[in-house]
């Protein structure tokens, strides 16, 4: 009740200030009149009584003031008047206000946005219970992570004692039919314990059971919340319903919770059990059970540490047991790679993200230095004003309060703008981000980052508000008053010079890094992919349904049907007007086709059982190399003669030919690709090298086979279509042509080859764009700082300049004087910055392609750019100084 009264009375006081003051004055006057009357009653004259009353009661004005300062509303009133004054100050100097607000906004916005993006990927625990107990387990191939085989998983699962549960998973992209258009969904085949390992259970229905992993088990599926909403409008009676996937009916047994995030495949919308046959493991090595195409996760037992688990797994890897035979390609002789799930999903982007984080911290630092610099410049100019206020009786506390209010008024809009910039930044980052950036869905403006930004603005505001006032109190009044007459050089100038040198140095570090990344991108784009990517349309065509099943009664019938469908579709595409050539391939260069499904072992006939190469296997239609413009170097290309019944032939890439045959001709030599129990392929031609995974990766050993002569028919092929005009314009016609053959087959990943190439290099481009943006911001901030210091110095030296001019200095002399001063600061900053840049270049060396960390062009170019911009920033105040009229300045004093 009382609080309410306090609030309403206070508010009334604020709103009806004059009325309230009048009442107070009246009350005080009446009090003094009563006192006077009393003294008069004791026999004093009017005059004497008045004096006696004052002597007794004090000064009525002071009493009234004391009453007026009562209540919370009074603090508000002071704040409002401080704000009004501060706003007036800022309005008087809008350039200063705008530059500082923008500086703060850039620094805070950039750092908040980057921190928001990096935090969930690198630092924030994954959205699972005890996420640090989830480990990823990989096989080792050439020192790097490689997928595991089902046999390895079973062996580790049975021998290891460190894990509560282990699970395997692989991509599963079933075609959903029955809707308006056939759709391909993204999902995963997972072993029964997958969700147990993650520690998340379905929100509706149940988890998988071990019995459902059996090859003859029932078809069951768990849906994501999103798919359930989109497909079934969140129907609660979904459990037990049938969904038609790849022509089979699957029973829905569960729906995952709404916020469930599958960090192992963020696009996954449905899950089904893996169907591997345990009996095959010891029976035959040439089976899917021994193909290395699975990823593996495990959840540690609570009492087991990560180190214990790693050493146990290593011991298992190096001591095979006879009851767990291992084929040569999964001998585990190089051990296993074990990493926490969080580090594992981020390991490809970690160095780049840390570099970006470092860069943005530099930007924030430059922004802070710049704001401090601006505020110091201002307090230097206002030393006189504060000295006068002090002389007029303003208390220290009151002045500090005024200054803090002013600084806050400056930093709060900076912070607000910064948060707006951060929101835009986060959106831009998500839009620009490369496909391999994990946890993209978890990136949003993070409250922690928001608080960080807000605290930064507040601290900058307070610090820069208080530093000048501390400084004022240190100076005695006299100096302050003298300073106001502009005759004594500002004491801040020395500090401010150092701040500018710091800014230049930091900016150079960022610029050199950005320059190196730019050169690296330039080098990368100069790399030829090995084919002509212009006017090339690509799309993935899926063949799904029971008509493609290989039945025990007709083992090859399904494959034949698949090949027939693809060939008919290709014929239809070739008939589309505007199509020059068309072909298909099992693996599309520079696409996101997972390398693991394209990699096969190849062995020439003169190699022993332990020898062989890992090659990319391309199952292609005749005419593929012509369509892609992959050059023929020797022999012949595949053509219509290479059918199922004809002798088996292969093309090999130039790199593979060189690796195995040196200068000898590979033509007529024979090799196995994949299983060894099949007829040999004879090499009939050598073609140019093609980049498969990235322009930056020289991994080009490849074998091209005719789709009719491979040992299995790929269910998904990429069509490549060379067009006469704009490739994107042909999309509807091409899709219609394929669907004219079979209406039920999904067509996905429709993209021009140029776009595909750009997407492949998205990570580098992403880092480059960020560094370029930061570099430009840093350059601008350094230029503003330099300009500010020199302008201040020119203003303070007006008199000196005037005297010089009066004594006969020419304009060019004065111009040179100031420019030399500024360039001295710049050069000093560059000298310091170069040593910082050496360290930065070492850090980002791993992100560079074909570029030395000491690339002369990048170093010289960015340094020159910085000098030119600094030169312009110096020249403007210098020019102003040169126009100083000597008579004017001397009189101005």
């Amino acid at each position, binding site marked *: 009740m009382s609080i309410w*009264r306090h609030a309403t009375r206070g508010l009334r006081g604020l709103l009806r200030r004059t009325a309230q003051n009048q009442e*107070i004055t*009246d009350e*005080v006057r*009446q*009090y003094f009149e009563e006192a006077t009357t009393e003294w008069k009653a004791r026999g004093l004259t009017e005059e004497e009584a008045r004096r006696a009353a004052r002597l007794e009661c004090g000064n009525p004005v002071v009493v009234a003031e004391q*009453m007026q300062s*009562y*209540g919370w509303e009074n603090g508000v009133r002071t704040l409002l008047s401080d704000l009004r004054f501060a706003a007036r100050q800022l309005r008087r100097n809008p350039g200063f206000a705008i530059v500082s607000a923008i500086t703060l906004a850039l620094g805070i916005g950039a750092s908040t946005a980057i921190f928001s993006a990096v935090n969930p990927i690198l630092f924030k625990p994954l959205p699972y219970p005890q996420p640090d107990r989830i480990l990823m387990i990989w096989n080792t191939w050439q020192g790097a992570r490689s997928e595991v085989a089902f046999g390895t998983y079973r062996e580790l699962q049975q021998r290891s004692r460190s894990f509560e549960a282990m699970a395997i998973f692989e991509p599963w992209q079933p075609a959903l039919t029955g809707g308006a258009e056939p759709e391909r969904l993204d999902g995963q085949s997972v072993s029964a314990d997958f969700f147990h390992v993650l520690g998340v259970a379905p929100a509706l229905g149940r988890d998988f059971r071990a019995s459902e992993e059996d090859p003859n088990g029932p078809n069951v599926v768990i849906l994501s919340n999103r798919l359930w909403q989109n497909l079934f409008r969140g129907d609660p009676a979904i459990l037990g319903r049938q969904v038609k996937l790849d022509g089979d009916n699957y029973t829905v047994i569960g729906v995952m919770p709404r916020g469930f995030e599958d960090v192992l495949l963020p696009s996954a919308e449905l899950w089904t059990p893996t169907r591997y046959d345990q009996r095959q493991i010891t029976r035959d090595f040439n089976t899917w059970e021994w193909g290395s195409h699975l990823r593996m996760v495990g959840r540690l037992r609570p009492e087991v540490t990560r180190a214990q688990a790693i050493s146990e797994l290593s011991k298992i890897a190096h001591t095979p047991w006879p009851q767990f035979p291992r084929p040569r390609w999964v001998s585990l002789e190089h051990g296993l790679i074990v990493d926490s799930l969080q580090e594992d999903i981020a390991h490809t982007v970690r160095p780049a993200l840390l570099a970006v984080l470092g860069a943005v911290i530099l930007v924030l630092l430059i922004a802070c230095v710049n704001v401090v610099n601006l505020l110091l410049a201002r307090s230097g100019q206002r030393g006189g004003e504060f000295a006068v206020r002090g002389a007029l009786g303003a208390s220290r506390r009151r002045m500090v309060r005024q200054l803090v209010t002013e600084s806050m008024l400056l930093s709060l809009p900076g912070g607000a703008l910064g948060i707006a910039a951060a929101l835009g930044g986060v959106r831009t980052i998500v839009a620009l981000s490369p496909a391999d950036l994990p946890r993209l869905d978890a990136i949003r403006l993070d409250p922690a980052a928001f608080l960080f930004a807000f605290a930064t603005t507040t601290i900058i505001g307070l610090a820069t508000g208080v530093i000048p006032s501390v400084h004022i109190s240190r100076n005695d009044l006299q100096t302050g008053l003298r300073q106001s007459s502009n005759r004594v050089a500002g004491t801040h100038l020395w500090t401010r010079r150092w701040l500018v040198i710091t800014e230049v140095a930091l900016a150079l570090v960022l610029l050199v890094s950005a320059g190196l990344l730019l050169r690296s991108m330039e080098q990368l784009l100069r790399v030829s992919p090995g084919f002509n990517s212009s006017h090339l349309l690509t799309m993935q065509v899926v063949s799904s349904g029971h008509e493609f099943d290989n039945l025990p009664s007709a083992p090859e019938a399904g494959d034949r049907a698949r090949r027939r469908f693809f060939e008919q579709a290709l014929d239809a595409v070739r008939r589309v007007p505007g199509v020059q050539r068309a072909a298909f391939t099992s693996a599309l260069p520079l696409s996101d086709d997972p390398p693991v499904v394209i990699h096969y072992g190849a062995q020439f006939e003169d190699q022993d059982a332990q020898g062989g190469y890992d090659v990319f296997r391309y199952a292609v239609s005749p005419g593929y190399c012509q369509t892609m413009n992959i050059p023929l170097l020797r022999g012949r290309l595949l053509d219509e003669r290479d059918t199922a019944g004809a002798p088996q032939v292969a093309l090999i890439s130039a790199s593979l030919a060189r690796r195995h045959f040196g200068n000898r001709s590979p033509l007529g030599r024979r090799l196995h690709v994949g299983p060894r129990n099949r007829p040999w392929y004879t090499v009939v031609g050598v073609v140019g090298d093609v980049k498969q995974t990235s322009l930056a990766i020289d991994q080009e050993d490849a074998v091209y086979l005719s789709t009719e002569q491979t040992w299995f028919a790929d269910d998904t092929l990429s069509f490549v279509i060379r067009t006469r005009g704009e490739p994107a314009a042909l999309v509807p016609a091409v899709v219609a042509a394929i669907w004219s053959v079979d209406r039920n087959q999904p067509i996905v990943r429709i993209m021009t080859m140029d776009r595909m190439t750009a997407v492949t290099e998205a990570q580098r481009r992403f880092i480059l764009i960020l560094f370029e943006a930061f570099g430009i911001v840093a350059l601008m901030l350094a230029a503003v700082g330099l300009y500010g210091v020199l302008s201040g110095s020119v203003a303070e030296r007006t008199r000196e300049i005037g005297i010089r001019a009066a004594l006969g200095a020419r304009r060019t002399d004065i111009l040179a004087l100031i420019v030399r001063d500024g360039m001295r600061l710049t050069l000093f900053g560059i000298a310091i910055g170069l040593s910082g840049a050496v360290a930065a270049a070492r850090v980002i060396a791993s992100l560079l392609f074909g570029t030395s960390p000491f690339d002369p062009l990048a170093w010289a170019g960015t340094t020159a750019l910085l000098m030119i911009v600094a030169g312009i920033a110096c020249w403007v105040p210098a020019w102003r100084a040169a126009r100083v009229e000597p008579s004017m300045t001397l009189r101005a004093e």
Partner: protein
Amino acid sequence: MNAQNTDVIQGTLDMLILKTLSLQPLHGFGIARRVEQITQGVFKVNPGSLLTALQRLERSGWLESEWRHTENSRRAKFYSLTRAGRKQLELETADWTRRASAIARLLREGA
């Protein structure tokens, strides 16, 4: 003016005001004089503190005020005790008595 005058003990001003007003409504100067009279000039009330205290007590809901004419027909702001103010006075009186007797006991024992 008497050298024996003492400023009102910190924290007792509120109680003195409430007690004074419990007898009859008064304006500021009247309260000051009454306090001095009753305490026989031991306590001297400073108008700044008194008027601010009245503001505070009024805002706390213990007093209410009204502009009225005095006996010598001046307009003055008269304060009177509310029901909550009466309760507050009882509380403060009890508290004060308890503390004063404790101090008195302590001084007696010490002597």
